[in-house]
Each structure stands twice: as structure tokens, then as C-alpha cells.
């Protein structure tokens, strides 16, 4: 089924790992919506969150290609309802004295924060599931969007389960 998939990938924090993984993805012709990466609670390990729209067979192949990478410790799919995903967006909106109040009320409805105000514009930030962030962007679009920056999606599985903890991919000892 063609839909959105979110993969959470634990990788060893070695030099070149980001370019290796992103290179793998582009080389195999997988189209990704977003990719984020940062250190985890263990500084030797980073978590990558990869979001893509594709068919099931494509995501299956992508998981296997990722799993066989030397740097990859674990690949988990973040399934809707069993996981929480968030995205952070900042939107710079044209805010003239006339429409400023309307912009502010939209921000309030979405529980977004105003983080910068200038004479002709303001920056609004929002964190949420991507359908919320997208709805927000669409709602403020008529006011005039000057710039948008999105963090890309990150996420975790719900509950106490920590998939990486019982992983069996052995750590090579030499």
C-alpha cells in the first residue's frame, strides 16, 4: 500500500555515517520526505528518523538495505497509534498592522508560539504531528508566508518498550 512510513534507525555515531546512509537511500532510488539525525542517550549511538512515501515492497527493501549496513544497529518502523511522532516548524508570516490580530488568533487556535515580532513580519513556532503542522501552514498561507523551516519528523514508540535494548546484532570484538 502506498502510504507514509516512518523508520527509526539506530546507527553508530561514526564519521561518514550520515552520508553513507543518505547515499544508500538516494542511490537505490528511494524518495524520502525527511531525515533527521542526532545523538541518543548514548553518545556513541545516533538515532535517524526517516520518513518516506512509498509502497510496502519498497519500504521492506529499504529496511533490509539499512539493516545490513555495518553502522546500523537497529531498524524499527514507527507504526501509527503505537508511536508518537512530532515535527517542529517555524513560519515567518507577513504581519501588517491590519492583519496582525488575525494572525495572532490563528496562532492561538493552534497553540503556536510567537517567537519574534518585527514591523512587517513575525515568526511563529509550532510542534506537533505533521497533519497539525501542515494544517497550520495552510491556514496562515493567505496572510503571506515569507519563509518556512521544518525540522523533519522525529518519533518514539509508545510504552516502556525500548527496541534497541534487546537487540541481538552482535557488537564485534577484536
Amino acid at each position, binding site marked *: 500500500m502506498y502510504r507514509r512510513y516512518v523508520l527509526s534507525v539506530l546507527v553508530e555515531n561514526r564519521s561518514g555515517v550520515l552520508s553513507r546512509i543518505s547515499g544508500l537511500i538516494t*542511490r537505490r532510488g528511494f524518495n524520502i520526505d525527511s531525515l533527521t539525525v542526532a545523538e541518543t542517550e548514548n553518545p556513541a549511538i545516533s538515532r535517524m528518523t526517516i520518513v518516506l512515501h512509498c509502497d510496502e515492497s519498497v519500504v521492506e527493501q529499504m529496511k533490509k538495505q539499512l539493516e545490513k549496513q555495518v553502522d546500523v544497529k537497529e531498524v524499527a518502523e514507527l507504526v501509527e497509534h503505537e508511536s508518537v511522532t512530532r515535527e517542529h516548524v517555524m513560519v515567518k508570516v507577513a504581519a501588517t498592522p491590519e492583519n496582525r490580530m488575525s494572525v495572532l488568533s490563528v496562532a492561538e487556535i493552534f497553540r503556536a508560539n510567537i517567537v519574534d515580532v518585527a514591523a512587517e513580519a513575525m515568526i511563529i513556532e509550532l510542534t506537533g504531528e505533521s497533519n497539525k503542522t501542515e494544517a497550520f501552514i495552510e491556514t496562515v498561507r493567505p496572510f503571506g508566508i515569507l519563509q518556512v523551516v521544518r525540522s523533519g519528523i522525529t518519533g518514539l514508540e509508545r510504552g516502556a518498550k525500548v527496541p534497541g535494548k534487546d537487540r541481538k546484532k552482535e557488537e564485534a570484538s577484536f
Partner: protein
Amino acid sequence: MKKTGAQIVVECLLEQGVDTVFGYPGGQIIDVYDALYEYSDRITHILTAHEQGAAHAADGYARSTGKVGVVIATSGPGATNLVTGLATAAMDSIPMVAITGNVSAALLGKDSFQEVDIFGITAPITKYNFIVKDQSELAETLRRAFYIARSGRPGPVLVDILKNAQMGTCEFENAPPRPILPEVDHITEKDLQRAKELIEASRHPFIFAGGGVISANASEELKAFAAKIGAPVSLSMMGLGAYPAEDPHFTGMLGMHGTKVSSMAVAQCDLFIVAGARLSDRVIGKSSEFASHARILHIDIDPAEINKNIRTDGSVVGDLKVTLSRLTQIVEEADRSQWLSQIEKWKRDYPPVRERKGEITPYYLISEVAARLPEDAIICTDVGQHQIWTAQHYPFSLPRTFISSGGLGTMGFGLGAAIGSKVANPKRKVVLFTGDGSFHMNCNELITVTMQKLDITVIVLNNNVLGMVRQWQKLMFDKHYSQTTLNRKTDYVKLAEAYGGTGFVITKKEDVGPTLDKALKTKGAVVVNVAIDKDVNVLPMVPPGKAYNQQLMSIDI
């Protein structure tokens, strides 16, 4: 014990049992070369004419033995000259370790003299690669490199070592190499049972085996498995030698230039068993029509190969030697003699295509060579028509006797690979079948053959054209022979002599036998230039992207 990084490199090579390396020195690897000088009683370095030749030699060394081939080069141009060799090895899953030098940490990233990001360049064409910035990481990195190259699905690994890490000293203790155990973690009872069911339910099973069988040293297990289930066997080009060509139930290659019998078997089988092959586009043709009446059972060490190009009905992931012998144990023996006699009949009805064009046909030449060589002779090829003719007509019966660039199709691979094969197997005969196009790419390595006192017979199937491309132009581009007519004036005898070897020319059919007798007895670098017709085609041919029922048995329009 304190050692320099350069000494640690050589110590680690010795630890891994390496006694021969191929390479070419330069400024940023000079420390390692100094260590090689110091250890020259324990490790032999083969100097080639070009780093590409060294990379292909390391590859040939690995293919012909199963051991890890080692190549060493300097930074910048030395390192980039390895690229084709690494990509060639990566595509065919060949275990290799490439060691390159690079500028010092202080100069890194400043576009310094002969600095190149070989780590970045080779990431997509290696199984893994490393950059070592400090000597303290060196031993562990090299040990991992060897382990990664040879474990699981093998492949090339590059270790780029900064100059300061070669020069600096640190504590070093020898350690035994980490043993490489067969990969069995993913072989489950459930998968084996499913495979057993598929096989037992099948009346017309057909095996297609590839290079994975060779890499797992599983040809005996393949034979036993095929015999137990009464299935005919086809091979991919990479698999040649894994099953004896003379076996009555061997159907030849399957794929773009596979036999008619293999095509018929794949169309009519009810179970298609793939063992250690990755089902590339050169095998599948049109995926919607491939093996459409069959269920598919895929056995491979790499889980990512399962369902990559074709949906399977069952699969077992793990070491092929283990999987094949387990399956042989658990499946019920069944009488499939009717199916096997059908195959034998097809083999009688559809013998290999042999176009009769020109004075000397490729088949005649290849079989005359084969008739003069022992079973364990190592046959290398370059890339083009001569390669496929060799694959189709040479009767390979032992694994690791056919050395050819399959996945990348690298013209210029052959001579380097022959050098590596001969260095690794000094007592065995090594013959290279090459084309007039391919040979010109790296014929400079003839001097390496001479200098190393190797006996290698190079047979040039000289059709005066880039025959394989010309064949496509004939078939698909209205005979627009754009840049494929060579008609080069190269004097192959003089060329051989210039490099200290011996040359022969064959233009008449009656000279083939006597000249081959002489050439195969001549020591050193021997080049035999054999005139063949420019219009002999590689047949049969399934045109790219076409289904097997569109297999062409002739293409002269």
C-alpha cells in the same frame, strides 16, 4: 611493544595470514612501504604498472582462492585509480582490503597536494570503508576491515590512513584473527520446513545457482541437493564452475545469453529454486513474465536479496553450505526422472548455437584451448563477446576456475585478474581470454607478468571491433556502427616482445592446434592474437527487458 602505524599495518596483515600484497607506492603511503621493506622476508609485494591493475590482481587473487586480496596505493591519483577495481569487486561480492595513504590531519580538508576524499568517493562502491586519523585506532580498524571483507556476504573494504597515523607510534600487541563462522542465525526451522514443502510439492523443480555457491564453497552441497531432489541445474555467469558443465542435468547459463534449454526449463518448471544468486536484470529480463508458472524459493546469505527483484514464495537466509546440506537431509527423495529425461531431450534437440562465420570460430578456438588444459586451469576473461563465448563454451567443472567481471562488466579487468590468480596459484595454468578492445585498456600489465616471472597465456579473440556493442548496434540501432570499428594496427607480437614476452598469430584454422601447443608451453607473458570474424554474434540473446519467449537464436537481418 611500541610500533609505528606503518609497522602496525604490516603486523596486522601478517596476523591475517597475508603473505602477498599488490600495490604502487607514493608520498602519502611511503611509510607503509618502508615497513614493507623492513618485513620483506615475510610479505611479498607485487608492483604493477598501474593501480587499477593492482586492484584487479588483488581481486583475482581473492576470486581464485577465497582469501582476502590486498591492494595498497598512495593518496590522490593512486587512490582514485583503485575505484574501478573496488566497484568491480563490490558488484561481485569479492573480499578485498584496500589500503590507501592520505595527507596528515593538519592538511586534511585543505585541498592539499594529492589530497582526495577517497573515503567519500568509495562509500557507495565498498562494503564498508574507514578513515584512520590516529595510529591508536589502526590495529582495531584493520582487524575489522578483514572481518567485514570476508564475513557474511563478502565485499571490498577500504582503509584510508592519514600520514600522521602511519608515522606516529603506539603500543601494539598481536592478536589472533577473529574466526569467521558460517552465518546461521537467520536459518529458521520454519523457513526450512516451508522450503521442504515447496520442494516436495513440486514435480518440475529447476535450480538456478550463482556466485554465492562459490563464495560459500558449497558446490559439493549443491550437487548433493540437486541429486537428492532430482532437479536440473542452471548457473548464472558468476556461478560457473559451481556445477560441472558435463553433467547431463546441467542446462547451461540462464539469462540474457543463457541457453534455450534453460529458458524452456524456467518457463515450464513449477518451482524455481534460486541459490546464491541475486536475480539481476540480466537474468530476469521482463519481470512480469519471468518463471510465471513457478513458485519461487530463494536461498541466499543476504536478506536484502529476498524479494528485491522478484517476489518469492519461500526463502532461507543464511550460509549456503549449511542451508543446502540441511535441505538435502530433510527433503523426501522423489522420482522426477520424467522431468529429467525431458531436460535431456531438450538438450539433444537444442544444442548450443554455433554460428559458422569466418575461418576460426570462437567455439572452435575455445574448445581447442580447453582440450589442452587440465581441469583445474584458471580461465580469466575481459568483457565483451569473448567473455560470454568463454562462459558458454568452456567446460568449467571446478569452482574458482572462471574469473570474470560479472556485475560491473569491467573491460580491462582480465590481465590484472590473471596476474593475481597466477600469483595465488603458481602451480596451475592461467589463461586469459580477452578482446582486442579490452586488452588495450590495461595491456601495460604485461610487464608485470614478465617482471614477476609469471606464466600467463593471453588469447586475444581479435574481431577488430568492440564486438558486444556492435552486436547491440546491429540489433537495435540499424547497424550504425558508431565508434565500434577498431581495425587497430597494433602488432601483438611486437607488443608482447616489447614487454619481454612472446607473441603468436593465428589466422588459419589448421594453425590453431599447433600454435596453441607451442604457446601453452611457452614461459612468461605469452600473447596469442587470433583472427576471428567481426560478425559472429553472442547467441542466444534475450534482448534487454524482453521476456524469455522472445529469445533470439539469430540476429542477422
